[in-house]
């Protein structure tokens, strides 16, 4: 399994639990889950590029 797909799987699973437990209606859950998923992916990619340029 590639690193990126593992990150995607991790983000998706956590987003499902966060979305279902944090919000009340199905619409709110969907949007919150997508928001958390997007945040995981964006922050993960940004951190990966920052670490890529560090010399250690």
């Amino acid at each position, binding site marked *: *399994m590639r*690193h990126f797909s*593992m990150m995607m*799987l*991790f983000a998706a*699973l*956590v987003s*499902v*639990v*966060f979305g*279902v*437990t944090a919000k*009340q209606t199905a619409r709110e859950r969907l949007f919150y889950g997508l928001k958390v998923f997007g945040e995981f992916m964006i922050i993960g990619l940004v951190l990966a590029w920052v670490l890529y340029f560090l010399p250690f």
Partner: protein
Amino acid sequence: MRLRPGPGFAFVDKRGGNQSLTVKERESELAGNMHAPAAAWLVGVVAWFVPGGGHILLGNWRRGLLLGGTVAVMFLTGLKLGGHLFSFGGQEGFYSLLQIPPTIANFGSGILYLICFLLNKGFSEGGDLASSPTFEYGNTFLLVAGLLNYLVMLDAFDLAAGRKR
């Protein structure tokens, strides 16, 4: 329920405008909500033991299966990636203290953790396991699976106690 202070030191419910309570009435109502019924504790224990089981016990099958399935997939993925499960034994001195936080996180997976403990699966500390490129990923999946199940457990408890809908 979102409350805002109303006229004459009364709290007014935004959704139901006719429900106005004095401060003392509101305080006593909140104090009453702090005492969860025994059934809620039972649901909490079941929810910890079987991921999603608390919601299923409350009749919320879809939510229970979704949450339980998510926790189970995360746990099994962690095992497949060569992750390590922590336990209290096996270390001495300061190192035994370092085992406590990850053990608590792993323990949140309930029956999944207990089955692995009984089968001694995921607890071995071989060097070949640690050298696996996905070892740390597996650890993270296993730790987070337990922590997510604690969240699911609290959700089921709140639902059973009537604090959440």
